[in-house]
């Protein structure tokens, strides 16, 4: 029972929102759709929910054609970015809505609905708030009500649109772990949309990255993080340092620094990337490219180093023990990246 999206396209007027997107979410998988705003990720989610019709392509779930079904018939739980809770209904009635609108023949009894609502309230840890109205809840609580409401219909698939977008940082981190736990408990195939790469990498089983309506990479978080398919993804996944370099005869030149490259490296002008925390600081006599230390600050458990190399500012995030004494503002050091990835310069 997996979700298969096959070559889906959608345009709004003359603006293409999705172009030939294909992907698959396996049974019980937690899939993130990651991309900057305007990448088409929300459009794709709304197509899965039946709130938008694609111009072309196919969407199936367990072999069944989803596009032939209306939003109402799909039994897909959707959590909206701003929750879309029914403002004039209590928490309990919000959660019960999906069950209470079923045709009489398949509608559970009042008592049964009450029991199910109770179970869901426990699952989302909102037992005492069932008589409140949405306007009386905090953002995090609303989010959990929206999730419980979507789960109430026993959806075959759960769709979340920027589930943490409207919450502050602390609540966001707590809810993120909690959501993962709920997913593992219920085992529902879940697709969620986010523009936050950290969230996607932290939470998802696999991450699909979209850009300008196209799927540019899909894979497990570590694989995507360690082997981004192109410069855009490397940059977008965060913590990236980009340097301009030149490759000739198997040697990469960055400033006055020379280092051998693998055989399959692009030739000529390149963008060389490494992660902010993947570098060794050496003295001016040592290995690496030359950089001037401009400043230094504590950031969480790490130290942030503000540097300038090749006339451009760059930032490193290193553990305190990795920063030698001679790396002080005003000084000059050499930076040796642990692993560089090269992409032909755009």
């Amino acid at each position, binding site marked *: 029972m997996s979700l298969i999206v096959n070559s889906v396209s959608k345009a709004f007027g003359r603006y293409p929102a999705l172009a030939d997107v294909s992907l698959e979410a396996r049974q019980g998988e937690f899939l993130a759709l990651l991309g900057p705003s305007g990448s088409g990720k929300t459009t794709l989610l709304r197509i899965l929910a*039946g*709130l*938008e*019709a694609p111009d072309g392509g196919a969407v199936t779930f367990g072999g069944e054609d989803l596009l032939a079904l*209306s*939003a109402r018939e799909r039994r897909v739980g959707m959590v909206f970015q701003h929750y879309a809770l029914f403002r004039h209904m209590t928490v309990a009635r919000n959660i019960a809505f999906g069950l209470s609108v079923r045709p009489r023949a398949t509608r559970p009894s009042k008592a049964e609905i009450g029991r199910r609502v109770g179970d869901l309230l426990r699952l989302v840890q909102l037992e005492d708030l069932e008589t409140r109205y949405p306007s009386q809840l905090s953002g995090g609580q609303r989010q959990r009500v929206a999730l419980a409401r979507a789960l109430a219909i026993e959806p075959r698939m759960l769709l979340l649109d920027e589930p943490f977008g409207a919450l502050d940082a602390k609540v966001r981190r707590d809810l993120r772990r909690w959501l993962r736990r709920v997913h593992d408990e219920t085992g529902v195939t879940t697709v969620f949309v986010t523009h936050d790469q950290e969230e996607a990498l932290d939470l998802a089983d696999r991450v699909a990255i979209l850009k300008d309506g196209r799927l540019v990479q899909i894979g497990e978080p570590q694989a995507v993080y360690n082997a981004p398919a192109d410069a855009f993804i490397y940059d977008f996944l965060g913590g990236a340092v980009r340097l301009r370099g030149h490759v000739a005869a198997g040697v990469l030149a960055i400033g006055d620094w020379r280092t051998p490259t693998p055989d399959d490296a692009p030739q000529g002008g390149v963008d060389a990337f490494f992660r902010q925390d993947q570098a060794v600081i050496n003295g001016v006599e040592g290995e690496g490219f030359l950089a001037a230390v401009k400043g230094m600050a504590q950031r969480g458990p790490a130290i942030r180093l503000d540097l300038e190399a090749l006339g451009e500012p760059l930032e490193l995030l290193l553990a305190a023990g990795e920063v030698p004494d001679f790396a002080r503002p005003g000084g000059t050091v050499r930076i040796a990246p642990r692993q560089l990835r090269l992409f032909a310069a755009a």
Partner: protein
Amino acid sequence: MTLANVRAGRRRQAGVLPGFRLSMAITLTWLSVIVLIPLAALAIRPWELGLDGVWRTLTDERVVAAFRLSFGAAAVAAAADAVLGLIVAWAIVRYRFPGRRLLDALVDLPFALPTAVAGIALTAIYAPDGPLGALLAHVGVKTAYSPLGVVIALTFIGLPFVVRAVQPVLEEVDREVEEAARTLGASDYQRIVRVVLPAILPAILAGVGLAFARAVGEYGSVIFIAGNLPMVSEIAPLLIVIKLEQYNYAGAAAVGLGMLVISFAILLVLNLLQTWLTRRSRG
């Protein structure tokens, strides 16, 4: 709107919320039956008189006098509404005084009071033996049964439009622009002239436009106080009624169409002016 457009809309919306076809069908049917077809009758009917006949109807001296009164009095009344409306809105927004909420609620009375009731009440007040009419007659001003009476009735009718248009904008100005101007060291008078007035001018104009549009066509509150003397205090809508009573349908339609065309032209100009002012005060 053409049917083809509606179909295109339908296609684009397929699969989303239901009810497009039904709600559109109700909306378009109702608009057609209640607004479009009747107005089409108004647009067609006069021409059975021929271009010549329509021209002769509209340039008849009694019609010209009525048009002059209807549009003239409406313009004067709208201007009076601009002044009084600004004062009332200013008092309600800016100052705290006993009875402020009541005053605020009473602003809508001309909306809520049936026009015929307003008409006979205003007449009773401004008639030569009425409380204010006697006072004014004493100083030699005849109000009821004269063009001035028409202006008073139209001012009454139009007042809420200006107040309700200006009020929210004035509140907005209070919060935003003005504190900024104060921190820049502007004096109170400078702030009113340079900051407040330019910001609310588009709103005043919008309110004046609405008041004017309403006043031009107003009937119930005017006919009692006007005295309805041909050539002097006879308004254009009354002329339509008179022509209808003479079974001169085409003539009545010609006067009606003439009124509509002129007032839409004036409203269009006001609208453009307002857009221009808004853009200027934003830019």
